[in-house]
């Protein structure tokens, strides 16, 4: 293929290099000639890029349209939807708070696991670990990140919950509970927090560390008082992305957190999250254009808005630490 490139084309052969007039005519000619093939290809590639825009528009349009239908149902109004503490479609109660509350509980538990452990692991990997230890530990975290979420759901239901019930007693811990789902979700998100925070820590220039050592700081003091603050925006970006991931996570909560909305602050009781609700309702045979069916879209829209806002915030923050050090 490459050889073709070097082979002179017919046109260039015809012109002697000394024939200045002719060659400049050729250049002008080349410039004028519309390259339809090239144009077409560029157009096609632009279309490929635009598919992503179409996807976003599709999401916004479909979620918006069906949500509008949902809010037009006589039993539903927006204020009640956002402030009601009961979700019982059969008797016309559509308050989303039980679902949001359960989502927040699983997210909170997951973050209590993933954020401290993820950050500590990132500090270890970037500041302490020998290249050999890194070469061993990083792939393990990558494998952990690559395990499908349904497997984590299985793990939460068949291992974590029985374990909690043995430790805390089966009368305190229900078979389905948000705590177990949150714990396992924390393990699932740990690699994400770790690798993003590690990137942020690695971006801190070596000179900052050297300066701290020069002042007589220990390694721990350097890590906690110099490197972590310098990488803070990146670390917070990682935390926010982790929250967004936890809010949108479906399979763990669908399997382990319980089905049936329940407004409770007890993490050992069953409660259905937003994603769990969507999965359960759509898994059954729901007729189109019923309030049940439309409610999926309203909750989906809420979910999309929350995660999108978190993602944008995270991206803004991580862009900031790149600007400072690169």
């Amino acid at each position: 293929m490459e050889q073709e490139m070097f082979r002179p084309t017919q046109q260039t052969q015809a012109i002697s290099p000394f024939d200045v007039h002719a060659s400049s005519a050729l250049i002008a000619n080349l410039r004028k000639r519309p390259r339809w093939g090239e144009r077409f290809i560029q157009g096609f590639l632009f279309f490929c890029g635009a598919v992503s825009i179409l996807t976003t528009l599709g999401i916004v349009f479909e979620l918006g349209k069906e949500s509008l239908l949902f809010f037009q149902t006589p039993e539903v109004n927006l204020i009640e939807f956002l402030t009601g503490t009961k979700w019982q479609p059969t008797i016309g109660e559509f308050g989303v708070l039980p679902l949001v509350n359960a989502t927040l509980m699983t997210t909170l538990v997951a973050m209590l696991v993933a954020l401290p452990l993820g950050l500590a692991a990132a500090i270890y990997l970037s500041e302490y670990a020998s290249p050999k230890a890194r070469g061993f530990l990083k792939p393990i975290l990558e494998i952990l990140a690559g395990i499908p979420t349904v497997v984590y759901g299985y793990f939460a239901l068949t291992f974590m919950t029985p374990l909690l019930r043995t430790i805390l007693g089966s009368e305190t811990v229900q078979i389905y509970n948000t705590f177990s789902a949150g714990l396992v979700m924390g393990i699932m998100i740990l690699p994400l927090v770790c690798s993003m925070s590690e990137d942020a820590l690695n971006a801190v220039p070596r000179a900052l560390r050297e300066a701290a050592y020069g002042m007589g700081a220990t390694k721990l003091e350097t890590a906690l008082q110099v490197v972590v603050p310098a990488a803070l925006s990146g670390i917070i970006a990682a935390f926010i992305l982790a929250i967004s991931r936890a809010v949108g996570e479906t399979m763990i909560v669908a399997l382990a957190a319980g089905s049936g909305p329940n407004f409770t602050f007890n993490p050992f009781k069953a409660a259905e999250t937003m994603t769990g609700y969507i999965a359960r309702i759509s898994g059954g045979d729901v007729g189109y254009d019923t309030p049940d069916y439309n409610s999926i879209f309203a909750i989906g829209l809420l979910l999309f808005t929350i995660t999108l806002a978190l993602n944008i915030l995270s991206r803004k923050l991580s862009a900031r630490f790149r600007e400072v050090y690169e």
Partner: protein
Amino acid sequence: MTDNDLMQRSPHLIRRHRNGKIGRAIFFLSTTIGLVALIVLILSIINQSMGLVIVRYTVEPATLSDKPLEDLESTELSAILTQRLKPSRLRTIERDTPLATLSRTQLYNLVMEEIVVPKVQKSFHLDESLFQRAKIEQIASEEYPGAHITFRSWINWNFIVGSLSKSPEIAGIRTALMGSLWIILITIVVAFPIGVGAAIYLEEYASSSSRINRIIQTNIDNLAGVPSIVYGILGLAIFVRSLGDLTQGRTVISAGLTMALLILPILIINAQEAIRAVPNSLRQASYGLGATQWQTIWHHVLPYALPGILTGTILSISRAFGETAPLILVGASSFINKDPSSLFSRFTVLPIQIYNWTSRPQDTFRNIAAAAIIILILTLLTLNAVAILLRNRFSKRV
């Protein structure tokens, strides 16, 4: 003044050094928690995928023949079948595939399924089976008199090639594997060209000063963070419902297209990184020889970036392979036993089966869910290993 003297004089310094050691230990322990979690996860799944079972047979194998069934020849097995089966059932089987054409293993399976019909009464995990055998025997003799205790690995060849069934003893995952395969193929065919095309556009053509290009780039980055279940809702609304006449509803093609949309952002970002890694000198050399922009891309940039692009593609495919939530919405059904045969077949996939089996209360369904998880994880590991090999092999050459 040696280090030791200094330490003795300054309790403050001693404390700081002690804190340093404690901090280091805490960081190290946090890192190993990932390792511990992975080991526990894998062990707990293996633990549930095999173990002792208490089985009861509808017809005792010992009454069928003097020898153990496994040792019988084909002729003896088909003799048992012709003797024991109801004539009507025998005719049905003969109509599908005559007994004479079946292999010994197939005949053996037929005898087991049609005559012996083992029913697992209770199953035990591997750890119980190894360390509490006496207790299991006691349970068996007290609660299930006349039943047999055998060791059963829930992952076996029949499980992989068997079709779905309502009873966990004979259920297999072939239908689900075929479903996954169909969907992955559609996903690749749709997502790969579009994804690579978009990456080329963004890296080679788009000028970052143009507003529309910046919007596309930001949009892709944000799409990568949208929860997968939202793609499921999108797929349900667009491919299943609005385009229902073309896709015929909850079919393989709807699922494949939904998955393609799901992995597109990841695929584009990976491909962009691969293209960005191509040295600029390569492009300039090509332009210097008079190549057009597309010639440069096609003959120089893409071949150089290809290993990276392929690695990224395989990684996003493996994500699609394990994805469950969107397919629940697009409508994978768990109760089909026909393999998908066209773009418009109804389907089920491996993760959906795991989900359904796990959500049943019976232990035996949890067992086959564990077995299916092992198959799923092995497949994913293989995919990732291929990606790594590809990367290593080609990165040496270039």
